[in-house]
């Protein structure tokens, strides 16, 4: 049925079925991919927001016919790179753009508001944005951006006070313009001629044996090109060391260990045909017993999920005489804390596109944290040499660890390899919930001791980390579970043990703060209990026991980086004390008036081992291009955290040029060197370090060549944008393009490698995950609890974080705000309940309405080994949020809650217990 309407002012007629979602018409029929899709046409995420006659609507729930004769406004209509709308400019300036996936919807919703109300207050902005999820920014900068743009549009003077970065000459998120104009092409936005669509058939059972699989009916369906099962895999049906026992496709005769385990891949002409055919594959299962918790999986009579038993790996740290330590304690305390499965919920769903290029290379465009790892897993499954596979990293709409999992890249590579055609697989949101890794639920048992004066003595920890049905990197989590379990404190004796346990829950894998977050939560809550029992200020307790540079740490040896924990705590102290005072005053007044609200203030610290994954030696390249630009080659995928900008800033700093002068080739295995895995907050420290080295080497090389031409000492060759000149005489400049030509005449390579190498500092350390690089931080939370409903509003969070050195204050703060918000979510609302949670409709990611006030103090204790003094903080900043909030809630209701999320129901139970115990709340 033809439908005529206007898109961004231009008349358009499309001939589609009349209830086709407007979103599909925009993206598929019109190729306007600036409008994103984040859920399954359910109206649950807001990234598809457009204006219909000026009012914001979910384009996924809008039948196209509704637009007949009306005006649709999308992000493409807002402004173009040369002519940005004030909203777009403000989003860039304030750092409101990270992964960029929520950005178009946010911009459009904000436009709808400002067109109608040029002078909105805080609450009105929140009302207009409350339906748009953001996972990166914590919303704060988005709100700031709307306020600034509104003022500008009213003709007022309003500039974002941009604190200039310490590193590099000016601030520029190099991909932000593309993201605010809708031009950034994410994997789901890409199409190729002849592209097929893949769909993975998944097990509907938590635990089942595949008895038989019949694809004959499905193969006959229209559009079906190929149905792939385990037997079709030319090479390894697995992910090597990444996940020891996880097949790409479950073979007949084997068991599928979780709901969502992959069984077959259907490749068809259209997504709908692939889906229909997947449903037509006839699979016979024998359903087996299943368990969801580590406790059940470890029970004596538990069904063995794997023949070797239900424990995957174990690890422990033990030193000192624990019995003696406890005997000498004035107080010992036992606690048990638990956490649940949580989902990354990046707003871009997992998608990957593969094709065979004209040289026969299997090329896979996919989100990743390490393209070389993905390349090797793909090659291994296809029985190819790694060089016969290329991985290209597209713009990524958020990861938080979730997109490190290689299975989708391998799956789509396999599909393209076997069909010899371009294939895309885009997960639905439900599939993303069913098939991608979650955060490991922990069950932690603590026993700690202390002297009456607060000196910590012994610590005994037992941790079960639930990795669900598959390894998915859970084998390594025990190291970080144990390391996180003791914190940045001096202990007399330590015995901490963790084991990774299989269940039939969703597989658990990489998640921001890998393994550390859950341990930090239990430790810092247990310490808070201890402080209360000792009648001691919780900050004093921590200060008293904080490690110093030379202290023997929880691990039994001193840590290898600079330690700023005491500074961190002292920075937090005045704000923490103010929070306490405010809460006391509030609660006294509320009691007086009989109001059912109480405030609570909680504190938590953390230490985080960054850079722990991957090698100690990292490579990057820097090139002087023939036109005089610099080109950085490295692998540090940017999933929104800003590594693209960081890498160019570092090069700009060393080469004394503006970042406009720098181009970047990042995370492409055909073009950039392997700079190691981007996990564990490594990129700034390690890859940044390698870029600094490469840029330094290039600088020296240019100085050597230029000194001949300039007739000066190489050390006197000075860089000034696109020129070099002798330090003494700026007028005697030579263009860098001419220097490049001179390189060529001399037959000298213009592309030079640099290595960041910690091996000399840690010569005996063969296992990178043991290298003791740590950063520390602390947070205080101020919460308001409704005593009648148990509903918690986190009102304020103050963050004190040792950055080493801040590369970019705007980006750092944006990342911290996002981490805090993610922490708020995982503490009070987020939980994947196996069997019940299937999509955003049943998983509660915080909206802008849950945003607390966030105050950030960046503490700078320069690193000893990192480039320019930096440390890795992207994950670390999330770890203290949960314990700070939970301690605040527990103190408000005078009852310990030892499970997250602290849902209204759990909080109300605690309140009821306190009331039964006759406590005066």
């Amino acid at each position, binding site marked *: 049925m033809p439908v005529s309407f206007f898109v961004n002012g231009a008349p358009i007629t499309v001939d589609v079925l009349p209830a086709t979602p407007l979103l599909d018409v925009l993206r598929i029929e019109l190729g306007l991919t600036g409008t994103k899709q984040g859920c399954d046409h359910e109206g649950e995420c807001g990234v598809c927001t457009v204006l219909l006659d000026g009012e914001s609507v979910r384009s996924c729930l809008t039948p196209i016919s*509704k637009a007949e004769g009306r005006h649709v406004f999308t992000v493409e209509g807002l402004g173009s790179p040369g002519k940005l709308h004030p909203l777009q400019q403000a989003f860039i300036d304030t750092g409101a753009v990270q992964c960029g996936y929520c950005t178009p919807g946010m911009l459009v919703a904000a436009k709808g508001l400002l067109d109608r109300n040029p002078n909105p207050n805080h609450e009105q902005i929140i009302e207009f944005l409350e339906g748009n999820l953001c996972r990166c920014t914590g919303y704060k900068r988005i709100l700031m951006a709307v306020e600034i743009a509104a003022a500008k549009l009213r003709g007022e003077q309003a500039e974002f006070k941009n604190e200039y970065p310490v590193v590099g000459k000016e601030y520029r998120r190099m991909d932000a313009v593309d993201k605010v104009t809708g031009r950034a092409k994410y994997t789901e936005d890409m199409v190729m001629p002849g592209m097929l669509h893949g769909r993975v058939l998944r097990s509907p059972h938590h635990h089942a044996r595949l008895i038989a699989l019949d694809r004959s009916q499905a193969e006959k369906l229209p559009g079906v090109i190929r149905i792939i099962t385990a037997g079709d895999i030319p090479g390894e049906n697995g992910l090597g060391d990444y996940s020891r026992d996880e097949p790409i496709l479950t073979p007949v005769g084997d068991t599928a260990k979780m709901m969502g385990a992959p069984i077959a891949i259907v490749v068809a002409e259209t997504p709908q045909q692939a889906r229909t055919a997947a449903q037509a594959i006839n699979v016979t299962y024998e359903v087996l017993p299943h368990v969801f918790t580590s406790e059940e999986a470890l029970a004596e009579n538990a069904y063995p999920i794997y023949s070797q038993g239900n424990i995957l790996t174990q690890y422990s740290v033990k030193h000192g005489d624990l019995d003696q330590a406890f005997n000498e304690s004035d107080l010992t305390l036992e606690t048990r804390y638990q956490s649940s499965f949580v989902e990354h919920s990046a707003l871009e769903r997992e998608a990957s596109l593969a094709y065979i290029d004209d040289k026969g290379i299997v090329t896979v465009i996919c989100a990743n944290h390490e393209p070389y790892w993905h390349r090797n897993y793909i090659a291994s499954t296809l029985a190819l040499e790694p060089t016969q596979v290329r991985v290209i990293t597209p713009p990524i709409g958020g990861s938080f660890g979730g997109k490190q999992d290689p299975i989708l890249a391998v799956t789509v590579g396999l599909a393209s390899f076997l069909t010899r055609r371009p294939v895309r697989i885009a997960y639905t949101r439900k599939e993303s919930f069913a098939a991608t890794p979650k955060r490991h639920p922990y069950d932690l048992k603590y026993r700690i001791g202390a002297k009456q004066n607060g000196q910590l003595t012994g610590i005994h920890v037992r941790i079960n980390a639930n990795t669900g049905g598959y390894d998915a990197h859970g084998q390594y989590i025990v190291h970080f579970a144990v390391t996180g379990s003791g914190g940045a404190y001096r202990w007399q004796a330590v015995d901490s043990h963790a084991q990774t346990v299989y269940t039939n829950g969703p597989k658990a894998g990489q998640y921001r703060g890998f393994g550390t977050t859950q341990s930090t939560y239990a430790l810092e809550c247990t310490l808070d209990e201890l402080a209360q029992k000792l009648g001691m200020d919780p900050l004093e307790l921590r200060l008293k026991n904080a490690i110093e540079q030379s202290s023997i740490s929880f691990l039994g040896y001193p840590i290898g980086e600079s330690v700023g924990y005491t500074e961190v705590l002292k920075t937090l102290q005045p704000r923490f004390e103010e929070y306490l005072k405010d809460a006391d005053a509030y609660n006294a007044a509320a009691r007086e008036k009989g109001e059912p609200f109480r405030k609570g203030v909680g504190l938590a610290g953390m230490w985080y081992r960054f850079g722990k994954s991957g090698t100690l030696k990292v490579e990057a390249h820097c090139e002087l291009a023939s036109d005089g630009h610099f080109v950085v080659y490295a692998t540090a995928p940017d999933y929104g955290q800003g590594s693209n900008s960081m890498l160019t800033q570092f090069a700009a700093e060393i080469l004394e040029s503006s970042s406009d002068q720098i181009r970047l080739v990042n995370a492409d295995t055909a073009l950039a060197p392997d700079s190691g895995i981007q996990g564990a907050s490594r990129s700034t420290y390690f890859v940044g370090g390698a870029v600094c080295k490469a840029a330094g080497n290039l600088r020296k090389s240019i100085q050597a060549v230029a000194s001949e031409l300039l007739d000066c000492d190489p050390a006197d060759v000075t860089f000034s944008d696109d020129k070099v000149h002798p330090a003494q005489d700026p007028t005697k400049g030579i263009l860098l393009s001419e220097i490049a030509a001179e390189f060529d005449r001399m037959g000298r390579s213009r592309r030079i490698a640099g290595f960041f190498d910690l091996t000399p500092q840690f010569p005996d350390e063969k296992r990178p995950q043991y290298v003791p690089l740590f950063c520390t931080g602390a947070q205080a939370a101020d919460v308001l609890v409704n005593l009648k409903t148990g509903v918690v509003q986190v009102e304020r969070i103050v963050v004190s974080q040792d950055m080493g050195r801040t590369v970019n204050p705007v980006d750092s703060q944006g990342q911290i705000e996002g981490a805090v918000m993610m922490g708020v979510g995982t503490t009070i609302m987020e939980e994947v309940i196996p069997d019940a949670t299937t999509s955003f409709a049943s998983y509660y990611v915080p909206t802008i309405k849950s945003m607390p006030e966030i105050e950030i103090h960046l503490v700078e204790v320069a690193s000893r080994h990192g480039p320019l003094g930096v440390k890795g903080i992207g994950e670390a900043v999330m770890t203290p949020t949960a314990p700070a909030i939970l301690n605040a809630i527990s103190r408000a209701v005078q009852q310990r809650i030892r499970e997250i999320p602290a849902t209204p129901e759990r909080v109300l139970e605690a309140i009821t217990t306190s009331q039964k115990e006759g406590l005066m709340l």
Partner: protein
Amino acid sequence: MNSPAKYLFPTTIEEAAQALADWKGEARIIAGGTDLMLDLQKGKIQPHCFVSVDRIHGLDQIRVEDDFIVIGSAVTFANLKDHPYIDQHVHVLADAGRSVGSLSIQNAATLAGNIVNAMPAADGVMAAVALEAEVEIVDIEHTEWKPVESLFKGPGLSNVDPTRQLVTHIRFPRCEDHRGTAWYRLGRRPSLTLPILNCAVNVFLDDSGGIIQRTRIALGPVAPRPFRAQEAERFLEGRSPSAENIRQAAEIARGETDPRGNVLRASRNYRLATIPAIVENALSNAVERALGFVTTPG
């Protein structure tokens, strides 16, 4: 996408009713479409034709008449909360509208659609029940007004048959004096979520402000259909709007309900534990508003 092949935009009610008759049950009324688009994807409905109320003359109007407030079936929740009269005098409806999903849902979703979709705790429905709303239902032969409460057969099942009938208007008695309404909603997060509980109340005081003449307390989701706490209502009628009476009424309301647990939202016990708090809160706010319109000398 399982889209029907046709999508009609009648401009009169008669035309719409005629279209439904012509399609003999194969067509279906659509308003905002925010629920129907989901039903369509899930295959819960498979109409051959959608008949839209969007462009029927007059149905996008909110009319403040002498005796009634009349709301057309194309009026969205955003229209409701933005309407000065509703915003000022019918808090329960404005606030319930604000609770529906988020603004970009409210800009499309309608009160009429909410009623015909017949979910037991739909925010708009709860407000309509508390307001004692009536619904005008039209088919090719008849037009009749029915109380909103009479339209629920079960969860998702309405006595309005949208393949044969259309809702054209919703109305409720106009009243500004001695009357207060209020809304309370409890959810797992403050926006973009289904309710753990919601409560809509409507309180009429006598001229002195000292006696509750009549009250309506709607609660959801505590039964397979929108629930009215009638014992609590009866208890309050004729009594003073004191804090103690309100507290007792809220307890009585708890006693009348039989909520179920939902693993994603809250258990039965949690719902039972919090019903008194939310009923009490809503009643107190409604009484306060009702008293605000009472002119007491001195």
